[in-house]
């Protein structure tokens, strides 16, 4: 498995994706985003409106997959083929700059303006 993380000792504190927030002084003032962008290996593959519900959309390269759901202006991963399932345990995201990453599958799901 080429995608395998060989060197997880270098992964100190990794995958703890600190979401970079564009705006917002208070948590309540976090700015809700408009689009959900799905990148595979750094390249944009899909773009959806966060305000239109999307039922079980499968992001796949033929081998690996992450299934995402958009509902009530939030997006999250419902299931994934990766061994760690960290992406699938991530809380739903809805604000600009927030992201869910699946490291083994090289998938980033992020919310933008």
């Amino acid at each position, binding site marked *: 498995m080429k995608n395998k993380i060989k*060197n997880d*000792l270098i*992964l*100190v504190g*990794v995958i*703890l*994706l600190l979401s*970079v*927030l564009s705006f917002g002084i208070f948590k309540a003032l976090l700015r809700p985003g408009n689009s959900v962008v799905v990148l595979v290996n750094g390249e944009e593959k899909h773009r959806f409106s966060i305000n239109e519900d999307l039922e079980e959309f499968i992001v796949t390269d033929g081998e690996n997959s992450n299934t995402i759901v958009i509902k009530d202006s939030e997006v999250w991963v419902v299931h994934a083929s990766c*061994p760690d399932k960290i992406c699938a345990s991530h809380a739903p995201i809805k604000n600009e700059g927030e992201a869910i990453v699946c490291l083994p599958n090289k998938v980033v799901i992020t919310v933008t303006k």
Partner: protein
Amino acid sequence: MKRFISLCQIIFLLFCALALSGCQRQEKFSNYYFEYFDTVTTIVGFENSKEVFDDNCAKIKEKLAEYHRAYSIYEKFGNEKNLCYINENGGAEQVDKIIIDLLLYSKEINEKTENKFNIAMGSVLSIWHQYRETGINEPAKAQLPELSALQEAAKHTDINKLEINKDNNSVRFNDALMKLDVGAIAKGYAAEEIAKWMESENITGYLLNLGGNVRAVGNRADGEKWKIGIENPDTLDKENPYTAFVEIEEESVVTSGSYQRYYLVDGKKYHHIIDGKTLFPADKFLAVTVICKDSALADALSTTLFTMDYEEGAALLEKLNNAEAMWTLVSGEQRFSSGFGKYCVK
């Protein structure tokens, strides 16, 4: 006629204003890369166009690739004398300067932390690495390492056996069974060096994020500070996705957590941050976040504090006097160092 001129003037002025605002209004762009340090690297920056941003990212990528190859402990690249090569050969001559600099700095932090931070723990950490890889890839075969094997390996973790010669850039292990593991500092050190290089090239208004190792490179073009949400280590608490929000300009924010990189043995989680005393995963906290100027120090300290008692760690920070921290206890309770609050957005 006069009216016509004034109309022209107005149009001209409007045009100028538009052109000006076009210059000033830089847009925010981001790129993601998966090929460095076995994690995801995010580069965020403000530029006039995606082309300029991508050009700068290409330069940053070259640097990332260079540090990634040099600091890799599990992979060799051709005949480069990287850390994997050095581990296999118990040292090397004419090593790249970026390796010598990292090792010297690691020794310095080792002294400052009274041996709590130790890159000579490789023999112990490689055992855990091997068991964890197996446990993740083949959960049915997941096992714990034998304590006796860990104790035997721990006899070969004396950093004083690491000899570094600055004059001829050579490294020698005076213990044949010693191994280096720079996992707790390599990303932070690379981020810091790359950030300094960017500053010298005037590539500012950027944020580097090497798998959770965040370094701000100058203020945002819109004048705002960078705002970082620190994720709640309790991932089941969907109501509170963040434990804190912090604002930084040129500082670094690094979090070490037990909740992400782990494997299961009989239903119990065993994560990747190993306590040098027990030789088992440290179990005092869910996460420790460190903020300080130097990204390498932030990286090293976040792991080190994770293995120390809160009181002991807080005392260390007071002594160092250049870093702040937030601890999330296993109970979910939080502790802060005396100056952490000044970074918090509340």
